[in-house]
């Protein structure tokens, strides 16, 4: 499998705290990678560096052979690297449907469609449908159709998570980064959400990196695991191997696992 994302020698310090120390990871196209580690181990920092929210002190990130390290978040997004957030980032005064419409509008605008002088209903690239139809389709796929007209502020936790992920999917990402997609979601819902997301993503053919604390979810959905500890990757293998690693057991999974 060819490498789509290549992080080399990433270092990041916040004062005395080391959030990334020589992080190296080559992510293969169409793979599903789980990022694990205790809080403060450097998982979110890794995601934030890939998406341009944080700039590494040293090291570089290449996306399909192109150095994206210096780019702004919106430019990285435009290249096809999209993310969801640990705390869902929604448009809380808008309805679920309007949240999708705003997102689809940005995709249209970035494709140079739907401007002031355009006529009729321009087609959203990737969906080959007008924005309204694309929105309905996505809501359906992510099980959000019944919440269509609800205000985003008044949604249950799991639904907020799904909407956050659906918003990230609007631009048809090549790489999707999910920061704790199942946190704050009941144990019963976790598998359903992950299954729905991965089904949706696989239909589009995207690479997925997800941060997860539930090892059952990780071993079931990830093809590969990156285990973080103290800003370093201490294990990089298929789930069965990584989760059995003594260091991972000691620092990440904990005794009881």
């Amino acid at each position, binding site marked *: 499998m060819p490498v789509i994302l290549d992080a080399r020698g990433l270092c990041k310090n916040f004062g005395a705290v080391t959030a990334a120390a020589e992080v190296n990871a080559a992510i293969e196209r169409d793979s599903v990678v789980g990022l694990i580690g205790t809080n403060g181990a450097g998982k979110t920092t890794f995601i934030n560096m890939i998406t341009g929210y944080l700039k590494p002190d040293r090291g570089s990130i290449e996306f399909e052979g192109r150095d994206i390290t210096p780019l702004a978040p919106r*430019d990285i997004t435009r290249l096809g690297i999209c*993310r969801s957030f640990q705390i869902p980032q929604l448009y809380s005064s*808008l309805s679920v449907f309007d949240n999708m419409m705003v997102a689809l509008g940005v*995709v*249209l605008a970035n494709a140079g469609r739907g401007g002031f002088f355009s006529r009729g209903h321009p087609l959203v690239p990737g969906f080959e449908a007008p924005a309204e139809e694309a929105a309905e389709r996505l809501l359906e796929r992510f099980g959000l159709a019944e919440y269509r007209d609800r205000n985003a502020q008044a949604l249950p936790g799991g639904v907020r998570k799904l909407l956050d992920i659906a*918003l990230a999917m609007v*631009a048809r990402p090549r790489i999707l980064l999910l920061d704790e997609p199942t946190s704050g979601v009941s144990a019963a819902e976790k598998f359903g959400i992950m299954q729905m997301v991965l089904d949706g993503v696989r239909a589009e053919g995207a690479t997925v990196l997800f941060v997860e604390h539930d090892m059952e979810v990780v071993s079931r959905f990830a093809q590969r695991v990156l285990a973080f500890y103290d800003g370093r990757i201490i294990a990089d293998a298929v789930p069965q191997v990584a989760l059995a690693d003594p260091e991972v057991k000691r620092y990440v999974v904990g005794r009881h696992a």
Partner: protein
Amino acid sequence: MRDRTTLLVCVILALLLIGGPFIPQWAMFIVTIAFAQGLVALGLMLLLRAGLVSFGQALYYCLGAYAAGALGRFLGIADIFVQMLAGALVAGVAAFVLGFLLAKYRGIFFGLLSLALSMILYGLLVKNEALGSTDGFNILPSKLFGVRPGAEWVRYAVMASAAVVSLLLALVVHRYLRTPLGRLAPAIKDNEIRVEYMGASARYAVHVKYVIAAVLAGVGGALAATTVGHIDPEMAFWTTSGEFIFITILAGTGNVIAPFAGALLYGAIRTTAYDLSPNTWQLSLGTALLLIIVFLPEGFWSLFKRHARHS
């Protein structure tokens, strides 16, 4: 729900053009000033939808007025459409330049920075002898396509021109609000992080809105100048900006017609208040604003919306 804005605009325009000659001169004056102020409020509405309040929109109102005035004073041009075009251009260019600074700021910083800029213009005009200092100067009598209308037709000609231009601009803004960039306004207000992570630039969107708002204010200023026939630095003073915010809050952000109706209502409240108690009219005005904010926080336009939702 079908959108009736275009129809509504056409009806208002037709009523004004046909019925205009039959209303008294003072009413024409009030309607024209309402269009001028409504244009500024329309721009403020665009910004307010993105969560931005400019306490200094009088800057562009005043620039537009002085651009129109300078045309007559230095070049002898008094054509009303040329005046409005000049007002739009000067305000637009100024906002384009200042926008690089302002588009970075949000909330109270955006508000106070815009206030500061308008007060700088006020200070400059007060000190400028060539532009009449604190007294300002008179505008040449308005012309229409190079022709000076007969005395009894001037007010009508100005009002008709104001109506055509203002309502056309309202339709342009209405259309803009439906483009992806226009739709981004509430998103910027809610969550800029998400806007960036969808691949859009909030700063660019704010810059564009800021320039559009300034152009509208510039046209409004030129219109006010030619209607009143006199301009002075008070047009850039912060109380003038306050009036525009008053109108915007009064109207609400529901529809592009609302700012014009709001300006008309503002004029009515102010005139009535002045009529009832010349010494304490601000008290009545303040009470009116208080009542609007308490009972109709989304402006009086929300009355129509509420009705539509129930029916």
